[in-house]
């Protein structure tokens, strides 16, 4: 993704933001649409398009659970590990999904490249703890271990939606 393309995307929405700096998030989201994640070059282009330093942009990108600085699978499953979910068993849920997909207990991408499991902070569904979210679209809970299996199987079977904001 080039800075030109990113600027072209930002120009029409520029006046919706009081501070120019705030454009960095829409820019990152847009740039990520291309490959599903951001490379170092993408970050540099976003920086050029937003007049910020690459280090600053990367620092922001590193915070957001849905901005990826490394390649991810076709679908991303986020398990909330904040308080309510933790009290209701999110640790087991995460551990279960991780071992099922054969990734480290901190999350990762399955060997077939289909599914990425990751931790997430509060997904805003405390009443349905423990909850999980597929891409940035679908939040569900409370989720049992067998329901989690079913979700993973379904995601493998389903075609990948495009464009994805994961």
């Amino acid at each position, binding site marked *: 993704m080039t800075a030109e393309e990113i600027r072209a995307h930002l120009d029409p929405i520029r006046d919706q933001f009081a501070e120019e700096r705030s454009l960095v998030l829409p820019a990152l989201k847009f740039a990520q649409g291309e490959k599903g994640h951001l490379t*170092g070059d993408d*970050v540099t282009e976003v920086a050029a398009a937003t007049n910020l*330093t*690459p*280090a*600053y942009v*990367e*620092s922001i990108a*590193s*915070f957001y659970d849905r901005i990826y600085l490394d390649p991810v699978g076709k679908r991303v499953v986020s398990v909330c590990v904040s308080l309510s979910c933790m009290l209701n068993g999110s640790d087991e849920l995460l551990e279960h999904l991780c071992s099922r997909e054969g990734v480290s207990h901190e999350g990762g991408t399955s060997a077939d490249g289909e599914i990425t499991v990751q931790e997430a902070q509060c997904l805003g569904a405390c009443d349905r703890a423990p909850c999980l979210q597929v891409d940035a679209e679908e939040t569900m809970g409370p989720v049992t271990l067998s329901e989690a299996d079913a979700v993973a199987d379904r995601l493998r079977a389903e075609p990948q939606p495009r464009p994805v904001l994961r």
Partner: protein
Amino acid sequence: MPDYAPVDLTGTDLVEFELNGRTVKAPAGTMLVDACAANGVEVPIFCYEPRLGDPLGACRQCLVSVEGIPGLTTACSTPVAAEMMVDTVSEEVREAQDGILELLLENHPLDCPVCDKGGECPLQDRTFRFGPGESRMVEPKRHFPKPLKLSPQIALDRERCISCYRCVRFSQDVSEDGNLTMSERGGRSEITTFTGDSYNGRFTGNVIDLCPVGALTSIPYRFTSRPWDIQNTPSVCASCSVGCNTELTLREGEIKRVQGRDEPNWQVEEGWLCNVGRWGYGADQAPQRLRQPILRDGGETRECSLEEAVAAAGLVLAHEAHTTVLLGGDVTVEEAFIAKELAAGPLPDAQVGSAGVVGAALGPLRALPAAQLGDIDGADLVVVVGGDPANQHPVAELRLRKARRAGARIVLVGPRAQELESLGESIRTAPGNLAEGLTSAVAQIATVKRPLVVWDELDLDAEPDAAVVLATALGDNAAASQLELTSEVNGAGLRALGVAPHSRLVDQDLGGVLAVRANPGAGPGGDAWNRALDSGGPIVVIASHHSELTERATVVIPCSSHFEHEGVLVTAGQRAQRLRPGAAGPEQSAPGWEILIALSHRLGVALEYRSPRSAFAAATASAPALSGLDYDTLGDLGAEIATSPASDVNGAGAPRAHDGEGLPLVTGRSVFGGPEAHLSEGLVVTATGEEAVLHPAEAARLNVADANLITLNSPNGECTVRLRLDPGAPEGAVFAVRGVPGGTVESLLAPDRAPVNVTVNTA
């Protein structure tokens, strides 16, 4: 590292406010933390640092109560206003500050006894003064495999970081390399680099001074000392003519660390150092350090005692019909003065010369009001003429960046492609065309309120017509000032003493030679010097390190390095500053001034100076530019010497013709490839080398290829060097880095650095 900004309580713009029930004063708009400090009240801080630009408010440590502002407010980002009622000691404030410290310590390991910062750690100190006696945390803290090498010189212990962002702000907003960053947020925050590589740069070491905890520590210094068994001495860096004020840390007779001072010199370095200034002290312990006097008699070389060496020096020099004293560009005022006295009396028929250029056309420029580096802050236009501050006078770069951030217009005019061009308007001039290239800058100087010209001594010496143009333009604007970036560390001091450059001596019969910190064979016109030295008489060398000259000398007397003796250097901005000894140096070495005095005794006309202080007093009495100065007036921060009266340029203002065939040669030095960088253990991994740079089109015309060795030939000598192609380099000239130990670029130049052309061939 200064925690609070200096506040001037003597001005007329003061407002009154109430501080803990007392009525006090400060200039309106001063940040509350600084105003409190100036009035004797300490408000604890971590993220605030007056030199890092606008306050960030990241740590919340500085909470105080201000009447009328609901809740507590951060004193680091609240400006003082008249009649404000401030409380920094109420129960509420005390509890809040205590609470913040408890939170900061939540993830901070309590490993102070094994932490390198322990004993001089702001977090530790402030926890004792303002913090909780105990932690209520029972949960496990963050753990990381320890420690990370942020760069070859900087270690990062991530678990100790309190996320104050000081280091990140330095990288983003001061050195503007932009490479340090905080990844993640909250409990997962981590300092890292954008590129994922090592944090390399010219100024990276400053983050160590800035870090208020033990997260960033110096790898060369780590675990060598404890704060209670060190001794700190204020001194001055002698690696370039900027003259940054330093603090030397001594332990067991050796310099273990150099850092920025807690009370910086705001007119010079503002507490920043470049990496060579910070880690160059390692050169003192290098194998090349002279540790034993040497005598060469016929074919025989033997070590001897200091006394024997001085006696032998006296003996061989006294037997000569005439003698030559050669001084390096970094001899102190005292050494130069005593050497002059020796030449005037005890030494037989002696002449004296020093490294450096004549600069016949530079007089009018030098006679204009001299600026200090600190004055760059207030300029609205800064014109940088020639040079390459980033590499030749590193800390000047930080001032230029600061001025740019403050809104000053920066114009760079000169023959080189250089990193700082992105700071503003850049006008590249073909060698010989500098005067013409100055046209637009000259027009701008006439129209602004506070123009300041930063000029490079060597580049303007090479193009005297440009110096004349510049002096006229500056003279026409009464508010204009000039700052000379001298090529020699003590160039201004040598000039003040009336020591002329030694280039005029190279064609003469040298007779017996006394060289003090000098090594002309490795400098411009090295081949001619070596011929002159070969046909001259015996050579006595007083030096701190081995060199080509010590290899051929009859008598070698080891002297103190600039970390080990007392003396005065007159650095950029004509600022006389005091070196102070941080360590004693090798047993069989002595300060240069002392050796010279001892030599005078041996020569039968004893000079009576008993200390550098008395030698300096005599020097000031003999040199009008230094008059009125003494060690006490120089104090810790130094003082400006008098500006020399304008001299007539006469015929010296004409352009200088280039000697030889081929393309004009433009050379530059890099502090980061100089002797300290190559000799110091901590720096050698990042030291840069000698190279020649050509534009690819020029290389194609000359039929030479990238990364190959090429041979450059000038009327003065020959040099073989690696070629780098750079599309950013101007066409029509050859660029080369000189001053690398063992390098030969310098031999292409004439002894007086007269402009030359070179032919280029594949080696």
